[in-house]
């Protein structure tokens, strides 16, 4: 028995050694690495992983030249992963989650000859490092169009309206600009499509997690129970879409198709163009902008319709898309929404107030907004972001930096909770 074990051990070890030696010498120079918060079971991270692989294949990279490291937490393990890729000679390193940013900056400061890229981050334009980049896209436009498709569907469901008002629901991950900007754009698109005489209100509930299938499902059921006739979400699991499917409630998705027959439409950021630019830079091409915003023009913002749509939806949404591209329609057109202000401390010491950075007229329409563009600990407003072009006053999102900074809580949208 002892001999057999010893023999087995020797065999295993020697084979392992041979395998180690055999693997040497055939590797091409590494180029690009992707760090993701979760794995491919998260729709958000899957969108990055798929786009990264597509871009690398498009650029003719060999499998050994690019790699993905998933399930990297938003702590020092992100720095360790980034530094490890730099050690191994990767030239472009990309991280996909908001909380990765500080650790990517730490790595960027240490490895000045390696380029670091970070999605949804806010600090590249103030850190001013030559090798650290932020990237995002004007996805609020895609959201608006997906909302428009949902509004057209609601026009066919008028029996579900109470007093000519449709109540819809939204599941968000965290109460911060990226999510707020997303659901507000979606809601404004939905409202814009409604027939004359009909209105909409929305309830938003936050989960406090980017990926929690059970919780997202539960929240969707709560919102449906509260009377929501249509649901959308910005959280990354299939929880909410599945709940909608089970309750036959129409659903609008983000990051990609859910493949369910309750799907009305989805919008997503197509990261392939950005990854291709990143790879070009790694292979000697032009440098990518420090703070890059993808647009509909360069197909960074994409949308598509699902099976559950009203007749003629495609043409109508395409017409709106044209107006957005031409600038004759703005997503955050100040005449389409009203805002209520409340000073900090009104309801006791822990009241941060409501929309304190907004300047509004007597009807509640937005005149100016002092947004927190340059991130600081106290989240103070520093930049005016409301513009007036051709007589249209609008909140210019993703204009001063790529990551969203629209964090206004507009009227008709009720937050059931807030989780930061």
């Amino acid at each position: 028995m002892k001999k057999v074990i010893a023999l087995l051990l020797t065999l295993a070890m020697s084979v392992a050694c041979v395998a180690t030696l055999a693997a040497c010498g055939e590797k091409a120079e590494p180029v690009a690495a992707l760090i993701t918060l979760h794995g491919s079971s998260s729709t958000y991270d899957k969108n990055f992983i798929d786009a990264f692989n597509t871009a690398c294949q498009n650029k003719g990279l060999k499998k050994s030249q690019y790699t993905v490291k998933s399930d990297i937490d938003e702590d020092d393990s992100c720095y360790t992963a980034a530094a490890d890729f730099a050690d191994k000679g990767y030239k472009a390193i990309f991280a996909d989650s908001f909380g990765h940013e500080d650790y990517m900056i730490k790595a960027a400061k240490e490895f000045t000859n390696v380029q670091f890229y970070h999605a949804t981050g806010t600090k590249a334009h103030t850190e001013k490092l030559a090798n650290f980049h932020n990237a995002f896209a004007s996805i609020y436009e895609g959201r608006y169009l997906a909302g428009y498709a949902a509004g057209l569907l609601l026009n066919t469901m008028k029996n579900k309206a109470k007093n000519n008002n449709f109540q819809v629901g939204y599941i968000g991950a965290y109460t911060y600009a990226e999510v707020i900007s997303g659901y507000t754009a979606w809601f404004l698109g939905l409202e814009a499509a409604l027939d004359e005489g009909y209105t909409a209100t929305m309830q938003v509930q936050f989960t406090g997690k980017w990926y929690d299938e059970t919780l997202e499902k539960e929240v969707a059921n709560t919102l449906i129970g509260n009377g929501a006739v249509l649901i959308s979400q910005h959280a990354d699991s299939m929880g909410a879409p599945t709940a909608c499917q089970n309750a036959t409630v129409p659903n609008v998705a983000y990051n990609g198709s859910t493949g369910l027959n309750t799907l009305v439409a989805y919008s997503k950021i197509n990261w392939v163009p950005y990854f291709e630019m990143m790879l070009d830079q790694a292979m000697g091409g032009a440098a990518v902008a420090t703070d890059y915003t993808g647009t509909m023009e360069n197909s960074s913002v994409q949308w598509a319709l699902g099976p559950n749509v009203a007749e003629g939806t495609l043409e109508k949404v395409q017409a709106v898309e044209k107006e957005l591209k031409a600038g004759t329609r703005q997503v955050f057109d100040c005449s389409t929404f009203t805002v209520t202000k409340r000073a900090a401390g009104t309801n006791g010491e822990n009241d941060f107030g409501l929309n304190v950075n907004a300047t509004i007229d007597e009807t509640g329409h937005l005149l100016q907004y002092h947004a927190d563009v340059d991130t600081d600990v106290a989240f103070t407003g520093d930049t005016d972001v409301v513009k007036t072009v051709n007589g249209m006053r609008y909140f210019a999102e993703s204009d001063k930096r790529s990551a969203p900074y629209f964090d206004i809580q507009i009227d008709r949208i009720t937050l059931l909770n807030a989780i930061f």
Partner: protein
Amino acid sequence: MTGNKTVHEPLFHVVKREDMSVKKKLLIYAAAFVGGLLLVSIFCALCSEDTDNPFEMFTSMFDGVFGTQRRFWVFLRDGALLLGVSLALLPAFRMKFWNLGANGQIVISCLVGYALMKWGKESGVSNAVVVILMIICCVGAGIIWAAIPAVFKAFFKTNETLFTLMLNYIAEGLVTVMITIWAPKGSGSLSPITEYGLPSIINDQFLPILVVTLLTVVMFFYLNKSKHGYELAVVGESENTAKYAGMNVKFITIRTLILSGAICGLIGLLLVGGINHSVNPTSHAGMGFTAIMTSWLANFNPLVTIVTSFLIIFISLGMGQVRQDFGFYNDAIANVALGIVYFFIIACHFFINYRLVFRSSKRPDEDSFIMNRKAPEKKPETEIKETTEEKQGGNA
């Protein structure tokens, strides 16, 4: 156990064995480990679209742990941290106090540490002051979190398993609450405070390694050579014996858990002050639960715990690299693989401590157990006595 001669023998009995040499034990562990890895390598190759060669898994694993200097340092650091948590559990476990709350004890210490660093940054106090306060308060937080269930156990006989487990959730929940207060506009993450924290000696990895090395030596002597170590072992064996020998069981229980919590607090201090400089509800990285396995596999021996801790970290870091190299974008396959290796190791632990005696292989002259089974016909009282002894032996 009827003592009836015509009774049917079951196919096999499980018999405790005590005669195995250390060398043989180690050999069996190694064989199980390698066997598990071999099975996993085949499994990984089958699941991967990128490669069909099962042996590439071994290459990846070794590369992931020893491939670069940084990886090796991280391996030593993570192994040291897990060893530290295991050492925290050892005294409690030897006393048969099932402290499942190491996760909570670590996280609460991280939270306190971050609060102090944040306070330091806001008030501009020097780092030395903050570090001294951190050492006291982090360790103190760990102690409080462990002492609460110990006091309840000592005075009210509450179930420590559930109590410590529940305190984990409370600690993690507290972190979430504090993040909401400290970062009212983020996405659930706090910015690291790099200006404050423990000094970096040689590199960020060295300090935890040094601290845990010293801790291992101290704990070895504490558990094996000191009066305290002896006392807690006696309490673990039999509370009544301890009482009869004049030991204060309540005091020993609380004292031991204070030690356990203090070590967890120390690990939390190293995590928040030296590594993450930030805190989140999973700052403990699940070490509190993994350490249950490492200390149990080591039979609560601090020296063997070194081996088991580093083994587990080797597998988990190695599998991280395998995931990357094999294109597993999902943690499911890696988790199954880890499960297989763990299963092999735990299964062989069983076969080292027990053996199966099959019906056909019974030889009365060799097998005392079967002799015992046959003996009682003449003296039924002995049977009762002996079976109780067997039972006790089986539990030890």
